[in-house]
């Protein structure tokens, strides 16, 4: 188990490093950067622009810029914004709270709603319940957040006046964006849950349990233990999608956060900021997947047996 975890950590770090390198090469390969975009547009002379580029090390060969960047990362120096000259680590620190709150709340809603819908779609007693749950899950999958957000703001904030619409901070401002993002994410969790429970229902141990006369409630317990396993993996995967969902949600609901920072940086071609967020996203994703893999082994002894 410990050996496995160490091996898994090694490959997670390798993937994160490869991701960072790809991002670095791709972004350096593009003509034009924030210095052109901001200074030159602001009417600075070519001499001033060249001096600024020199100072930032943008005229060094790419391999040296890469070496400097990676060494900086190792030391905890994520570089600084080409536009505001604020350290990237500080920008992330200031915005990560709002984004974590949004994706955390959305994940909570997505898992709760997704699992309930998945169970209803697979184990529901009446046909209308099963079809209704299935339909709702498909609806969630086919309505992107940039569409449901507008609808939700219109219905809950303008027509009903129940919740504040855009801007602001605090719990009341978190409910609508988290619900919209959580609803969309719940769709795939529901589908995986339903499929996995149906699979479990068809397995031999269910017949055995029924044959020896176990009460239906105990049979259900057996089924859910096995049926819920793949849900761990899909939740880990969805956490990655939530990160991109926050980009759009933050824009529509005019919230602070990393998604907004990323879009601004992309528009300004502010590479150190884009790279910092890319590294953060790759590290988070690798860490989540590693935890999910390890968790899978802890929960399901059969996976360990296979090694």
């Amino acid at each position: 188990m410990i050996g496995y975890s160490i091996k898994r950590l090694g490959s997670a770090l390798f993937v994160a490093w490869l991701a960072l390198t790809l991002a670095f090469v791709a972004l350096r390969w593009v003509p034009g950067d924030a210095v052109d975009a901001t200074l030159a547009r602001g009417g600075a002379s070519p001499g001033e622009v060249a001096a600024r580029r020199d100072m930032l090390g943008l005229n060094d060969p790419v391999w040296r810029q890469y070496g400097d960047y990676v060494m900086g990362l190792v030391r905890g120096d994520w570089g600084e914004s080409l536009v505001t000259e604020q350290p990237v680590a500080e920008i992330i620190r200031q915005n990560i709270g709002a984004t974590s709150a949004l994706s955390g709340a959305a994940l909570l809603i997505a898992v709760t709603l997704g699992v309930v819908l998945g169970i209803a779609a697979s184990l529901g007693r009446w046909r209308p319940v099963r079809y209704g749950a299935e339909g709702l899950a498909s609806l969630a999958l086919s309505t992107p957040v940039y569409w449901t957000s507008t609808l939700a703001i219109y219905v809950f904030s303008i027509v009903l006046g129940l919740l504040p619409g855009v801007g602001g901070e605090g719990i009341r401002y978190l409910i609508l964006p988290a619900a919209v993002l959580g609803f969309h994410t719940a769709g795939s969790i529901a589908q995986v849950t339903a499929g996995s429970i149906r699979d479990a229902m068809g397995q031999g141990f269910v017949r055995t349990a029924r044959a020896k006369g176990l009460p239906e409630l105990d049979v259900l317990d057996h089924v859910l233990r096995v049926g819920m396993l793949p849900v761990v993996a899909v939740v880990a995967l969805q956490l990655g999608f939530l990160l991109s969902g926050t980009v759009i949600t933050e824009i529509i609901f005019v919230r602070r956060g990393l998604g907004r920072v990323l879009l601004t940086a992309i528009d300004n071609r502010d590479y150190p900021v884009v790279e910092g967020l890319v590294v953060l996203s790759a590290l988070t994703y690798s860490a989540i997947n590693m935890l999910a893999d390890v968790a899978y082994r802890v929960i399901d002894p059969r996976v360990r047996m296979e090694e």
Partner: protein
Amino acid sequence: MSAAARNPRLVVALGVLGLIALVSIGAPWIASHDPRAAAPENQLLEPSGEYLFGTDLLGRDVFSRVVYGGRRTLGVALLTAGITLAPGIAIGLAAGYAGRWLDWALMSVMDALLAFPSLLLALALVTVFGSGVVQIAFAVGIAGIPAYARVVRAAVLEARAVPYVDAARAIGARPAGILARHVVPAIATPLLSFAGVTLSWAILNSAALMFLGYGGDVAAPDWGVMLADGRESFRTGPWVAVAPGMALSLTVFAINLLGNSVAPPPANR
């Protein structure tokens, strides 16, 4: 029992998609107004006989824009899906069949790309490529490759483990021949079903980039662009966003339904 009665989902899905395709192709004959013609005096009119879905902030007819928007949105999505599928299948086949170092190298790069959520990857690629419809198709299409390559590879690994592939190898068939004759037919169904998922991602993600304003032409009739317009004016004219939103959801819903009916979730046995 007829095929239609046995698989009602397939019939509904094909019917809806066929209708959407017809409307998109026949847009010039179906649209009642010029989708780009602005008329400030007609700003934000409610839906009526003249303007079926109302008008937007610039007085353009929402119905005509939705009809024309299908062309652009779905055209971009098809191009996007093509950009995902061709390399995705090639990489998945190569990695799954060749195995060893090639598999390791290809899958390491795919895993590194998978470390970015697909929309973030597409956003980063749009930074590289710049704004525009084709650029969006490439950005979203490339961002979808790693997931598709992984699915293809997994299917190939399963398909090549069957005895007849060993037998073909034993009698000296060449790898390309084995792939074409034995492996590809065996994996066609899961690949087709995941191609449906890929197409719905292509629609949702390319419309997302359009929504965020990377489409270049801001006046173009496009569902993503229209949703962005609708957001500006939803306080006074919610219909501007509702029509393209419904069209988008209906399309993706039908594609998912089609995917489910071609390869039913494992449970229905």
